[in-house]
């Protein structure tokens, strides 16, 4: 936790100092270009790595009733038996975190009056689901909103998102809900790693680092907009020059902007080598992306081992006398006929 925090601060401080010292080429061109490159190439490489191994068996985890007899109602999305059901299942998984929505928390009582003994109670626990969903949708919205810096003219759908996001009509410039919600969700996700004993025990630096990095990104972003009151026109000119592969000198942009940018680049650089690959990994998950049709459609395993088993002929050879005595039909009689 502490080391992750230090690392994030270090990245931020280095970027700030670098901007002050005028390393614009490094911070404004080399870093962003290489980060995007590493991000894309890294993710592609990771997907190729996964796809390089076969899925030898059809192993969906069935979350409901199978397709069976006509009078029994199938759970078509939780236990899909065909492609459309799998698409629906994946959609609910990716868009609404279906599996996490099931979450419960268990409480074990030693003595309960009702059961005159021990009892386990499982209560619905949707906090993780709610905040995880909140975080992911907020960051999606924030990400999309940033396209106003990447496209000229700004597409109307992005403008619409902005107006939606600023619907509270608070402050000047108008406060974007998504930024605040994203930060709140991140603090929740960080807080549970901190205060929940189980989470604290399982958490690795690789769990704290991305959270703190994202908090840093959101924090610097909010500061840029509301406190630093950054010159968005200048930023847009600079970013457009990057996207047109003709970087202009970003002189005049605040060091905070470069801090924000460097943290984003750090995230992109870190992404393909971390647990964050769950973003694309979920689509590969064989317990979710396969239909429950393994008795109807045979899957072929490319490394299926050779047939090797104790054959009936060997079995009968071993037990022929006893089998004959028990009156069992035989392929060959004991006398050899």
């Amino acid at each position, binding site marked *: 936790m502490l080391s992750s925090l230090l690392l994030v601060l270090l990245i931020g401080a280095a970027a700030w100092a670098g901007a002050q010292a005028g390393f614009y080429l490094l911070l404004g061109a080399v870093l962003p270009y290489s980060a995007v490159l590493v991000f894309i190439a890294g993710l592609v490489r990771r997907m190729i790595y996964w796809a390089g191994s076969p899925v030898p068996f059809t192993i969906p985890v069935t979350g409901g009733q199978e397709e069976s007899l006509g009078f029994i109602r199938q759970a078509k999305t939780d236990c899909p038996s065909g492609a459309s059901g799998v698409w629906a299942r994946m959609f609910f998984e990716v868009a609404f975190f279906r599996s996490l929505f099931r*979450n419960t*928390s268990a409480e074990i009582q030693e003595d309960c009056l009702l059961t005159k003994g021990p009892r386990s109670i499982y209560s619905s626990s949707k906090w993780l689901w709610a905040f995880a969903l909140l975080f992911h949708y907020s960051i999606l919205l924030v990400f999309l909103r940033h396209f106003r810096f990447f496209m000229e003219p700004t597409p109307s759908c992005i403008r619409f998102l902005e107006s939606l996001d600023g619907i509270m009509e608070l402050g000047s410039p108008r406060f974007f809900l998504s930024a605040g919600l994203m930060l709140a969700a991140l603090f929740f996700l960080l807080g549970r790693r901190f205060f929940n004993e189980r989470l604290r025990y*399982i958490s690795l630096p690789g769990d704290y680092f991305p959270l703190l990095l994202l908090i840093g990104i959101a924090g610097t972003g909010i500061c840029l907009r509301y406190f630093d009151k950054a010159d968005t026109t200048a930023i847009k000119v600079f970013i457009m020059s990057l996207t047109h592969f003709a970087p202009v000198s970003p002189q005049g942009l605040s060091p905070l902007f470069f801090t924000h940018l460097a943290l984003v680049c750090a995230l992109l650089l870190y992404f393909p080598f971390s647990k964050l690959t769950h973003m694309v990994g979920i689509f590969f998950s064989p317990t979710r992306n396969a239909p429950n049709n393994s008795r109807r459609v*045979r899957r072929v395993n490319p490394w299926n081992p050779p*047939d090797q088993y*104790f054959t*009936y002929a060997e079995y009968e050879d071993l037990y022929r006398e*006893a089998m004959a005595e*028990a009156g069992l039909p035989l392929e060959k009689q004991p006398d050899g006929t």
Partner: protein
Amino acid sequence: MAKLPPPQTLIADRPSFPDQPWFDTRPSFAPGNFCYPAKKETMETLHMPNPHEWDPAADDWGLPDDWERILCDAFAERLEKHRSLKLFMDICVRCGACADKCHFFLGTNDPKNMPVLRAELLRSLYRRSHSLSGRVLGKAAGARSWDKGVVKELFYYAYQCTECRRCSLFCPYGVDTAEITMIVRELLHEVGLGTHWIMDPVKNCSFTGNHLGIQPHSFVEIVEMLADDCETVTGIRPKTPFNKKNAEILFITPSGDVFADPGIYTFMGYLLLFHELDLDYTLSTYASEGGNFGSFVSFDMAKKLNAKMYAEAKRLNVKWLLGGECGHMWRVVNQYMGTYNGPAPANTTPPISPLTGTVFKNAASTRMVHIAEFTADLIHNDKLNLDPSRNDHLISTFHDSCNPARSMGLLDEPRYVLRAVCNNFVEMPENTIRERTFCCGAGSGLNTEEIMELRMRAGMPRGNALRYVQQKFGVNHLACICALDRATLPPLADYWAPGVTVSGLHELVGNALIMKGEGRRTMDLRQEDLPGVDDAEPEEPGEDG
């Protein structure tokens, strides 16, 4: 077996989390918390790699000299074979949603029994050799190197997971601990580490056709005895066809139903049902095991034991296969059999119920139908004459076995049958049934006596749910569709909810089934008197049968 502490103590005794981070703790092997090791000769007979004598409680496990290379290579090989493994090593975000979904964690409060940490044991090794950050940053990136303590730790926790997949249901990415446990067990087998309770049945099954090693003539004898018992109860002696060529259906069920109480009563239920239907079926002494302990060893071993089903279906020239009540058998049949040993033999055809004409479309390729699907279809089409009041002394609840529930989705078929044969049916709390069902605590080859306390701990969620309906609704009977359950749930019920009996679904079917020409039933299949039946004037139609 040591005497178990009372349930309250068992719960109160759960230790709190250790102070040290999990990287620095190692499990201590004490009698009662590990399964006995497989015998060297068993492993040799099965041509398993590096067979040797060893003792989990000893310091030195007698690993081969180049154990580290073997394990690293085996791990790399598994990564190339299973996309799931690569993915599950990479994408877990440690959100912790799986933690309290695991019955082993709830029962032991051992942090490494949280599915996330169980997987992290392997993930940390993965990072060391298969990720840049792990190679460079080591521990800071959550990576660690192999050492003999790590091997022991993997063994300890791979055999404290019943591959029930409950965590996977709740995981936002579907990370499947069963997959990881199966692969860790495979890795351990590469250096000769396995458990007796799994490998002995595997050996038996390999060479005699079933887990207990019942030889063909004894198998026949036992089934004949069960048929005799059926006659005692019903006055009708059901047919017992064995190894019959050209039968329409080959019926395969776990051998546990043939030799172990209370599974035998379920088997009697099958015999009576098939007799009443005049089903053209056969049992096989060669493919006399539906269960597949090989699936607790390795994919290859699972394939090997499973191969007998299709081989026998081919030899006997049957049309399709019908499978009895079993959990992991159905995991293998439903998700693996077609791939392992398919396509189904050319003589087989997509299954059609000879009584109702129903085509079992969902089994069109493997050609194997679950008995609960088969019977539910019969009942729906009014092909059975049932008297559920014979089960009126039971207030029944239903335990979904993990594998049919989460690897097949067989949820409503058994309930449909149960409701038809039993007037009093109560569900356990909703978070403990259907796809969210809790394991019996001893699946995947952990149903051995020497870890009874551990089993009771792992069975706590199921036990508590059972106790809840027992106290609240007067439930006195637990139905299930798994042979392992029939072995593991009776001690679990005795411990957590004393007074609840356990039976298979088709035992209740056998009890409720009104057969053509049967005598008046005064006993159930266990030959216990049916309450409320006046047997002052006993008819004895079985006397001349």
